[in-house]
């Protein structure tokens, strides 16, 4: 557990940093703010596409790409904010927060879902052959 006595800056979806000299941080946060809900909507939409397994598989792969976009936009924001603090000579400590750890299981879940869809496809094809 840690306690901070100074100012704490959070990188979240749609966070805005208006200080001069901060490059790409706000843009990256906005990108993250677009990728996160898109991933959520896509995942839920893929559930209802159970009749079209080819499209469902494609949507799951797109979900993995969106996850990567979400992750990299957050990391980009963190990188540029870190560079900004270094350039102004402020000793700032940084660490990943809950949002980062919530993203990490997503690709595993997507891969397992993809495996499930492929298994269904195999069963259907086996029935068709009969």
């Amino acid at each position: 557990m840690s306690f901070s006595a100074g100012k704490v800056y959070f990188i979240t979806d749609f966070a805005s940093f208006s200080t001069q000299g901060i490059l790409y941080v706000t843009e990256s946060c906005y990108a993250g703010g677009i990728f996160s809900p898109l991933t959520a909507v896509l995942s839920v939409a893929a559930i209802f596409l159970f009749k079209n397994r080819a499209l469902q598989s494609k949507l799951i792969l797109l979900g993995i790409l969106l996850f990567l976009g979400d992750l990299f936009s957050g990391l980009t924001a963190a990188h540029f904010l870190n560079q900004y603090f270094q350039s102004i000579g402020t000793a700032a400590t940084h660490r990943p927060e809950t949002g980062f750890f919530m993203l990490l299981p997503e690709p595993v879940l997507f891969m397992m879902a993809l495996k499930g869809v492929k298994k269904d496809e195999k069963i259907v094809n086996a029935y068709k052959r009969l």
Partner: protein
Amino acid sequence: MVARIQNLYLFLAGLLAAGSMFFPFWSFSAGKIYFITDFASFSTPGILYVTESCYAAGIFSPLTAILSLVSIFLFLELQRRQGLFHY
């Protein structure tokens, strides 16, 4: 449709993606940070029981580790092993 395992995975992924919007991704702290660790010492006046609690945690952590390791080697004495876990 409901009984497919991939639906659960997709629902969980969607839930995590939506949930991640409401939590910070990364944090930067420009001030002094105080860490609570085993054997940490806080000498500022007015801080009550913090150092004592950290020292207590510093005793409990290695004790738990030792006890877990000891119990591995007591595989022949099942009853004593079960008794160790009760502590």
